């Protein structure tokens, strides 16, 4: 389980997170939604220990990662995978080398076993035939799928997704969500997504949180979001420029 408790962060004069609190249940698919610039990606960076909050706590399976030493934090990081926007694949490595990277770093597997895992993970995201290509030779959607295969490589307990479908066409978007659902069912992993693609995440999420102006303004099941009377939620779902969410 992940607990985010009263997390606050200020960059210069701008208060980006104003006391964010929520819980992510073990084995669930939970999604943080909100407008661009609402603080979603900043919060995700805090949850994976890339940034430190000014105050508050982020507890992953009983361990508070805020203020934790790098060595201890790395032990926790070995239990999770991250899919960054655009995949963040290492462009000097081929697709298979990218997926093999965490295995080479953190597992005791021999080269043959590593290659077997790589093929299995690439198979799970439908990319078995592209092992020797480089990130610059594949499409944006394929890069995200390779990123997902890399995130899955060490069979993690938790996977964090930063905008897994941004910039993709509707069909590729649908395919990515299908791979997310399929790999989640296969592994019973906790998935935490950050997205503003409301229609896609409604279909796959167990729980949704909405962040607005650095605070969580709504939290519940996709159904409760659909029937919500909250004006901020309704405006975000409808995509209307008129309402309490002002356009900067």
């Amino acid at each position, binding site marked *: 389980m992940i607990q985010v408790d009263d997390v606050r962060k200020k960059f210069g004069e701008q208060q980006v997170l104003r006391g964010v609190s929520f819980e992510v249940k073990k084995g669930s698919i939970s999604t943080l939604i909100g407008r661009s610039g609402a603080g979603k990606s900043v919060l995700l960076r805090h949850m*994976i220990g890339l940034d430190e909050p000014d105050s508050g706590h982020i507890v992953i399976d009983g361990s508070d990662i805020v203020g934790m030493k790098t060595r201890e934090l790395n*032990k926790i*990081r070995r239990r999770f995978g991250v899919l960054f926007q655009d995949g963040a694949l290492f462009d000097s490595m081929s697709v298979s080398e990218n997926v093999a990277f965490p295995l080479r770093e953190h597992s005791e597997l021999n080269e043959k076993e590593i290659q077997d895992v790589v093929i299995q993970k690439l198979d799970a995201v439908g990319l078995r035939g592209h092992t020797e290509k480089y990130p610059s030779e594949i499409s944006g959607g394929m890069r995200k799928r390779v990123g997902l295969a890399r995130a899955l490589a060490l069979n993690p307990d938790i996977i964090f997704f930063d905008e897994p479908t941004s910039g993709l066409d509707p069909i590729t978007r649908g395919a990515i969500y299908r791979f997310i659902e399929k790999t989640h069912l296969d592994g019973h992993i906790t998935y935490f997504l950050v997205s503003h693609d409301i229609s896609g995440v409604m279909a796959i999420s167990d729980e949704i949180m909405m962040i607005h102006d650095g605070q969580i303004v709504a939290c519940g099941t996709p159904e409760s979001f659909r029937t919500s009377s909250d004006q901020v939620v309704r405006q975000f779902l409808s995509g209307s420029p008129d309402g309490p969410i002002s356009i900067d």
Partner: protein
Amino acid sequence: MWVVDFVKSSVVGIVEMAQEWLSELGLVIMFLGASLYWATRPPFRIQETIRQLDFAGTQSILLIVMTGAFTGMVSVLQGHNAMSRYGAESLVGAATALALTRELGPVLTGLMVVGRVGSAMTAELGSMRSTYQIDALSSMAVAPVQYLVCPRIIATSMAMPFLATIFSFSGMIGAYIMAVEYLHIDAGAFMSAVSDYVTSSDVTQGLTKSVVFGLILSLVACFKGFNATGGARGVGLATTKAVVLSSVLILFSDYLMTAIMF
């Protein structure tokens, strides 16, 4: 009144610039500390270090041979022009050899490696920063400084003395050809002057300089790339700053080391 305002704003500008430089110097020292810390802790990135040795060292050889040879040739031409006025043409080989081993070898190799290797390091790391590849390393529990920075600094510092030696050697070949074949200086006189005047301490001091230059240029290049912000423009700016700063630091440290050593 405007004179007072001008002086005031100039002083404020200079103080702010000095503060900025000092704060950056502090950050570079901390970065060096982090690199030393991670370089001494397992896993040792031997494969990555070899890859960087190939890039910084092997792939620079042709460039170094060419610049070294031309530098030796032009040194002989200029030296002959000056020395012939005093009837000391036979010493042109010794003068060129001393200049190459003490100064030109390490300094020009350093500047050439800044252009070829340092700029590429900054651009690569800056691009990795802006595309979240460095964050991806951290999120996979891999220390980015250990994986990316330590191999580059170690490899460049190791490659530099070899490159400086190749520079001086090819410079001497160029000088010999120019002196003996073109200026008709006696080959025996040329070689004996070289062996009479160049001592082993000239060579070791030149090599020491080249190690320091390698450390400086790779440290600055990695620091600037690692901390690049602002997308493609930011990476471009970081690369320019890395090249300018490491070139200036090489020349400055060359002066310091020359003043101490000789």
